[in-house]
């Protein structure tokens, strides 16, 4: 019986995969690049072990050296990601609170004062509305926000920050609320039976239990924000993606690898940082 269920699940997934391949007209023969593509791939990957240290074409006098330019692009990438994530963490924290069932534990019986009674009536509404709002925030990709902002306002670094921050706020809020929901409730229950206010229950009963997971997750999202910030360069912001695309279009493949390795370095640094933090904060945690 169990084997049958497993087979059914895997078989369904395979069938849906075949439908997708048919719908897209995927043909394995198209995987072999044409002669032009093959030559390009050869040129591109032959430079993987020799990224450029100097520009591959003549540059005007006084241009900053390539490594410095890559570092400057990396700095902008980090700054946009940090600004966006800082905003997302604040927004995500408040939204995540509103969308967590655990938050409303305190108000469930707290009808002693007018404020408590008011919360009793409104909390299901706040909870529901914030869940829907979070789903909506997450549903539009940061690159689509970037295109919208470019159309509405023109280029400006602040719009890049907002483009990243909007969907990231939604994701952080969703995961924060799940973490608050999954945190052990006994401390919160004890505080409630001792007569603590909803704010006290939340601050001293719930938040400390979920905080390590939430911190580790926020740092993981920083790594994702770095990638998003780099890709926003393709839309004209001065992050790594901008220079990478320009070098690629000028056939300067060594420079492409310089920028790729800079991005790789940034992501690895962020990964090492969040990994070290996770090991200290979340013993035995996988994700």
């Amino acid at each position, binding site marked *: 019986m169990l084997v049958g269920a497993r087979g059914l699940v895997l078989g369904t997934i395979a069938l849906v995969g075949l439908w997708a391949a048919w719908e897209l007209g995927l043909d394995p023969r*198209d995987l072999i690049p044409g002669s032009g593509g093959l030559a390009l791939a050869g040129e591109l990957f032959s430079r993987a072990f020799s990224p450029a240290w100097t520009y591959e074409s003549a540059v005007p006098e006084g241009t900053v050296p390539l490594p410095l330019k890559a570092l400057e692009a990396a700095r902008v990438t980090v*700054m946009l990601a940090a600004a966006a994530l800082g905003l997302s963490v604040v927004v995500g924290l408040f939204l995540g609170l509103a969308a967590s069932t655990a938050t409303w534990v305190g108000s469930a019986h707290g009808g002693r004062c007018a404020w408590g009674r008011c919360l009793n009536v409104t909390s299901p509404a706040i909870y529901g509305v914030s869940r829907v709002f979070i789903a909506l925030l997450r549903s539009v990709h940061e*690159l*689509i926000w970037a*295109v*919208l902002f470019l159309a509405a306002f023109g280029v400006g670094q602040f719009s890049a920050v907002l483009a990243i921050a909007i969907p990231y706020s939604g994701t952080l809020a969703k995961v924060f609320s799940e973490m608050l929901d999954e945190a052990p409730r006994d401390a919160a229950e004890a505080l409630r039976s001792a007569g603590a206010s909803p704010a006290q229950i939340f601050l001293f009963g719930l938040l400390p239990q979920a905080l390590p997971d939430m911190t580790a997750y926020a740092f993981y999202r920083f790594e994702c924000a770095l990638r998003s910030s780099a890709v926003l360069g393709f839309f004209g912001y001065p992050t790594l993606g901008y220079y*990478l695309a320009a070098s690629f279009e000028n056939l300067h493949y060594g420079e492409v690898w310089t920028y790729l390795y800079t991005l790789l370095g940034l992501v*690895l640094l962020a990964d090492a940082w969040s990994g070290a933090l996770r090991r200290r904060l979340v013993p035995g945690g996988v994700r």
Partner: protein
Amino acid sequence: MTDSERISGRAEAVHRLHAARPRSRFARWSGIAFVGLVAVAWTSPALRPGDFLSPRRLANLRRFLGELVPYPLQQGEGENAARVAVAWSLDMLGDKGWSAAGTSLALSVAAIVLVGALAAVCMLVAARTLATPEPYVESPRTPSRLRQRAWRALAAGTRAVLVFLRSIPEYIWAFLLLAILGPGVWPLVLALALHNLGILGKLDAEVVENLDPAPMAALRGLGAGRLQIATAAILPLSLPRLLLFFFYRWETCVREATVLGMLGVVSLGYWIVDSRARNHYDEMFFFVLLGAALVLLGDLLSAVARTLVRRAS
């Protein structure tokens, strides 16, 4: 015991608990460093948040918002506005919407199924419990140094490749692959697949490493080979968790699939950029909303699938 004694005893217990709470200087400094980084980023002169809402930009915004309204409505169809809007939307759906949404969905599905299969292979090579000369049970003869090193290098090498794959975003993979393979669907499927293989391969390998080793050790004791252990114990035991991660990654694949079309294959992203280039902002907004609907649908399906998996396991 008097009340006051009980209370002071409790206070002491609370104090002990408080003193024993997990603390980490590294975590504290990480927090401080991050807040500092955010502060520097927000005060950077290039950011200029105030400039964002300058009068000129607000005027731009007002004009832009007006142009998001379907074109026939902009022409003034005051009385039957709703009917005109619905007719316009159905036109858009029939013309490009359905097929673009279908392509985006198919892109995400094709990529994640490919990734699921590849990751199930990668995890076996990357899991340090299996990629060793003596998996699960020590062999009577100590394996040679060379064999130990070879297995360790295989696992470490696979992991390094996975790290590289996931460090490069889908969009950049797609950009590079489109140049190599030429315009078509494969570059986008592969771009989604490469980045997500890096993530799913790592997560799946961790699932394998965290399995209870007893069943595998029993099989090994009976003389089973690695492949037999993998098919008879590791795959069935890890399947529920693999499926959870599979659907979680599919969700993000749907999101990414809506934008990869911006690089030039007919999916939602393509029409978003195309209608923007033609200054048809009403059409652009329509495709943005359609993409959002698709992502919400993906989230919903993934949540249902994951609940089913959790309940069944």
